[in-house]
């Protein structure tokens, strides 16, 4: 059994990391600050910029994917545990499955970019 405080510690550590990584991810969209040199908000979403983002900052996106998913899903898990405390096992399993599925989809995207 993993202690609840262990999840909590990871929740807070991922929160600290998210400030940095999500901050970077959002700064990509801000003209003037963007490491992709996007001139407008829309331009930062264009194919050329996006694929450059994957090539140069793939590791940032991969980290963001894992910590974002963990933090968000563990937060949802906390809420669900409050909502239906009796369904504890089901909640834990569902959250774990969602984590694995979405992490897999995300990593596939990043891998496809780096591979091709």
């Amino acid at each position: 059994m993993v202690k609840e405080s262990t999840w909590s510690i990871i929740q807070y550590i991922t929160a600290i990391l998210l400030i940095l990584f999500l901050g970077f991810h959002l700064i990509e969209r801000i003209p003037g600050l963007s490491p992709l040199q996007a001139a407008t908000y829309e331009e930062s979403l264009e194919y050329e910029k996006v694929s450059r983002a994957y090539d140069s900052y793939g590791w940032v996106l991969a980290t963001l994917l894992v910590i974002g998913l963990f933090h968000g899903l563990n937060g949802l898990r906390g809420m669900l545990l409050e909502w239906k405390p009796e369904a504890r096992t089901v909640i834990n399993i569902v959250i774990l499955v969602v984590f694995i599925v979405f992490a897999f989809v995300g990593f596939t995207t990043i891998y496809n970019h780096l591979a091709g």
Partner: protein
Amino acid sequence: MNKTQKQRVKMLQNMIGFFRASLNPWVIRVKFKENPERVAFILHRVSGAIIAFYLLAHIIVTSYTDDPLAWERILNTLSSPWNKVGEWILATAIIYHGLNGIRLLLVEFFGVGIGRPELPKPPYIPPSFKGGQRKALYAVFILSIIGSILSAVLIFTGKLPI
């Protein structure tokens, strides 16, 4: 108490319930300035849920980025004004959740900003409400409003006026 008596006495659970407690800041009628932390908690929870569900959708949407044509199609379908409103709400949620998250980190993980235990004295304000976290909370509210306005400018005009 024998069994038949026990069956007759039905207790009322009288629970407020999850959704009322996490969406309505006035289920307990405490004034805002007496307990802004509760409003902050509800906003934190709602914004956290919004971002978490967005992230799930986001992972699906970005999985189309490896094909230029498919990504072009996605960008076109997602360029309606309502999507921009959605993005702005999301940006506001991230800004608030992040700033308030820093405050919660300091309070809940490092235990700072909640004063020291003291002798109760009139007017009996609990130390945790006199500590730095209360000031930080008001700063979070103000900075979130500023951040929200800036993100609206960025999302709706494409540029920041700097």
